[in-house]
């Protein structure tokens, strides 16, 4: 029988946790394995839908593009005009899915657990922006991309969701969480590894 202890994260084979840049770029990188991730889709102009979600999670979905909102322990990332990713503590995704499914039984929406479909590479430290900019065409200047901002974009040849979770003013900041599809994680990690080493 498979033991729960034998679960494997996307980057279990890479031993990346807390790898610190050796190339004079001041940054470190780690995998945030098993963070709960749930895709929610629904009509943002349907106030009932928004209210239902608020009721279920005590969270206002971010409606402005490229932003996020948070009511600990859940945060919501804007992915598209009718699409969000809900982020929650490892293991709590089922509860989130269940409560939303229950609340949203009426109306047209969808809730899909994608916790295993993506992993998160957390990049932190003053050089984070520079490191990201080696493969990401977004404007990452603090004026253009700041705390709480989100973008679905590409880093090198991987599709990612980029979420800034701490500022330069924070200890060890800024911090970026990079969501990447499980099978691209190895590539993306090797990409960062090449840059920082």
């Amino acid at each position, binding site marked *: 029988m*498979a033991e729960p202890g034998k679960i*494997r994260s996307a980057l279990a084979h890479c031993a990346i946790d807390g790898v610190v840049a050796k190339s004079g770029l001041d940054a470190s990188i780690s995998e945030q394995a098993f963070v709960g991730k749930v895709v929610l889709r629904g009509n943002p102009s349907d106030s009932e839908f928004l209210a239902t979600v608020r009721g279920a999670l005590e969270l206002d979905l971010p409606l402005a593009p490229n932003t996020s909102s948070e009511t600990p322990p859940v945060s919501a990332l804007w992915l598209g005009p009718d699409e969000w990713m809900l982020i929650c503590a490892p293991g709590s995704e089922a509860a989130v899915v269940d409560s939303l499914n229950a609340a949203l039984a009426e109306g*047209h929406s969808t809730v*899909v657990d*994608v916790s*295993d479909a993506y992993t998160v590479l957390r990049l932190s430290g003053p050089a984070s922006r520079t490191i990201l900019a080696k493969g990401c065409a977004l404007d990452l200047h603090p004026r253009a991309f700041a705390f709480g901002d989100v973008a679905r974009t590409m880093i090198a040849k991987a599709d990612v969701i980029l979420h800034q979770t701490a500022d330069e003013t924070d200890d060890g900041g800024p911090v970026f969480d990079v969501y990447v*599809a499980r099978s691209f994680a190895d590539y993306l990690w090797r990409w960062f590894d090449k840059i920082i080493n």
Partner: protein
Amino acid sequence: MKRQRFRLPSGGRIDRGDARAFSFNGRRYYGFSGDTLASALLANGVHFVGRSFKYHRPRGVLGSGAEEPNALVQLGAGARTDPNMRATTTELFDGLRAASQNCWPTLRFDIGGINDRLSGLLPAGFYYKTFMQPARLWKLYEKFIRRAAGLGRAPTERDPDRYDQQYAHCDVLVVGAGPAGLAAALAAGRTGARVFVVDEQAEFGGTMLAESGRHIRIRDTSPDAWREDTIAALEDMSDVTVLPRTTAFGYYTHNFIGMLERLTDHLPRAEAGNQARQRLWKLRAKEVVLATGSIERPLVFAENDRPGILLAGAAREFVNRYAVAPGTRAVVFTNNDSAYAAALDMAAAGVAVEAVIDLRTEVEGDLPRLAREAGIPVLQGYAVVATSGRHRVTGVTVMRLNDAGDGVSGTARKLRCDCVAVSGGWNPAVHLFSQSRGKLNFQSEMNIFVPGESVQAARSAGACNGSFSLAECLKEGADAGLAAARVAGFEGADAATLAAIEPADGPQRSLWRVPSERKDARMFVDFQNDVTTKDLDLAVREGYRSIEHVKRYTTTGMGTDQGKTGNVNALAIVAGSLGAEIPAVGVTTFRAPYTPVTFGAIAGRHVGGLFDPVRGTPMHEWHVQCGAKFEDVGQWKRAWYYPREGETMRQAVDREVRAARESVGILDYSTLGKIDIRGPDAAAFLNRVYTNAWTKLGVGRCRYGLMLRDDGMVMDDGVTLRLGENHFLMTTTTGNAASVLSWLEEWLQTEWPELQVYCTSVTEQYATISICGPNARALLGAVAPEMRLGGDVFPHMSMQEGMVAGVAARVLRVSFTGEIGFEINVPARHGRAVWDALIEAGAPHGITSYGTEAMHVLRAEKGFVIAGQESDGTVTPIDLGMDWIVNWTKGDFIGRRSLNRSDTAREDRKQLVGLFTADPQTVLDEGSQIVERVSEAPPMDMIGHVTSSYYSPNLGRSIALAMIRSGRGRLGETLYAPMPDGPIEVTVTSPVFFDPEGTRLNG
């Protein structure tokens, strides 16, 4: 330390305390930090540097920067050798090794020099006129032509260097850090805008670096003091990025600028360490200020290509910036005032300036006055009509010009010299402006092309805008920088105009070809490609009148310098022969890059291990550990087969196939595309995207579907499961997972927005493990004791949820092999553990992992098609014999109408059949063509081809699937696959080879 004979005792921007040894053609020399290879060579009296492309003429250093057409060298050796490097832009470092190119056996004695003697036979385009007879000898001729190809040599080893890349965004990009660029950057930077200021040179300052500073002041101080203050101020601004050694090489659409920064090219190997060699910047600028300066144009006169003849501005730069005397006795030849500065600077450096030969009859500017005051003889209304010297110029012959400027007369005077500094005026460096698609205007006073109206968010300032005085450059620069920042949304006060004191210029006289009394004397226009005025004349004479034709016929402007010095001269000369105005002739198209860019830098890190992502499944390492061979399917690595010690591929695959039929096989199918489809219209949506009907499918049941493009051709297939009234889970082929999702989204968003359906990819959420075979049920039972697996409760094409190996799983009873099969889906994190548990539990059954090859054999035995293998974008479901899956009564679906087009509905289209070879052991090649009759020689009428072909261990013979014209009517017919070793006889059969009744599946 070895003496540098032509090094000036003082002055210059070199560091005399930092000597650097280098070698050229095997000889050792010394230069200083701050030198370029060109200045160091000249300091050592090396003027003869290379050979030209076509005639192998001796050539020296013409310019002092990016414009250099002649002084190209092979740099370095081994894996790090670089061909065609301009000596004028190669910074000197300790241990630098350089060699001349395009000469053999040596630079001085070069066999290729024979071409120069034969030049009469080798005019422009000569190769188009000859080497045609006899036709069969062309191959041989070409070998000889090819031998002459190329300049330097490409490395023969893999490039050991790494290349960095960086995206960037800014409000204002300033290209060029001469006075105009520096003023622009400062003005823009002061507004708080994000500014990038880049210059291709190691030091900022542009032409200021070549100034003696004697005749010029900026705001009461020396130009250099202003320069240093400005740079310091820029470096202090946190949002200003200062990038020396960075060339903006390409101005692309929507203000995207490609820039190459050289990080270690100027360092000795040991200092470079393992830093990246170069960095490619991909910059998006809101506004661009072009301050790229100007490039001096040579005069076109007889025998103007000898080593020692160089541009006057370059001569100045060598004297003032590098403290090198370009010769001992110089002649200056000019049509404008700027060259007098060279004369003055050389004279001040102790070079004997024999004379300034000026094409103009009246010479009134400040600089000529200063020159006369300095005692430099000025010959007004004179021209150089010939030069002498083999490997270095030894003298010039001058004669008086006539009034029209088209002839010379009087006595020829010979002047002895070892250096001729030439100026034909200055061309604004409009390359980037032109790349941005801005049109050029011709300014006839100076005979230059200047930027017209900008079409992108760009403005030009300084010499590149046709403004040549320092005061104008400073003002235009500051204005442009501020204006750009304002447009980008920043505020700043107008800056006070910077006062500059400088000599005033008189007018110039453009004589595009300097007359000579010698009719056969060659005048070079494109130095690198040896294009002379005669070649240009010939092209025009032969009807190649468009400047684009002239370029291509003569190759003028097509060298590694892209005609930076020669193009304007060439087009003016062509205009002259055509009797046309210069603007009517126009310029050839400016294209990126401004200067050549390393392939490796453009490829960046996307090579080797990072060329393309390698996607692996959650069980990937197990496959690796078990010695699997992998197959690339898109970006995925899929286990292809698992050879055991000593097994051939065929043996391994046979074993895997047999296991699946005889006991139980296990396959990693995680790569299957999976799409969660939900919404009140989900079933209606599936009805439209699949050919069959979906409304009545029960919850918990699965159905196979075929998806067409709207032209009726098969696009993808897969099993879809109904999870709820409004909820489906679609699977797609591995290769099409992403494109099918996009396809669904496209139809939903663009064509059927009224349908309430959401699609979400869950491909990677689940590890999918497929087990099949007579013992599959027993195996599943062992790891999922709570699931009820009997055929009555868990029939084919249904689904159950339950615990498998202790993990919540969704299990589909489906089969792609014809055996009882289960597809176990668990969250990816559990994939490996569940897989391991199945392997362990399957041990008693001899569970065998099988790869894609065995999977193919198994499905082919059953006649199951693979989208993309049996179908190739030209195949309909009817062609595949799958009429049963096309529901004509449910209403419209994608591709439906196309199936009825006159050709698509033909009865005699290619149809899927099976083939048996006459010899059961012969396995046809996939891709074999099939004919009815074999003839002696081609052509043969091909009626189809083999799409899949395998050895079937279960049948003990080979099997093949094929698409054959009217195939279904040919069962039993004998056909042939003509192969190079002879035809193979085949018989047409049904495409289902194994268990046609499907008894095993429902057992």
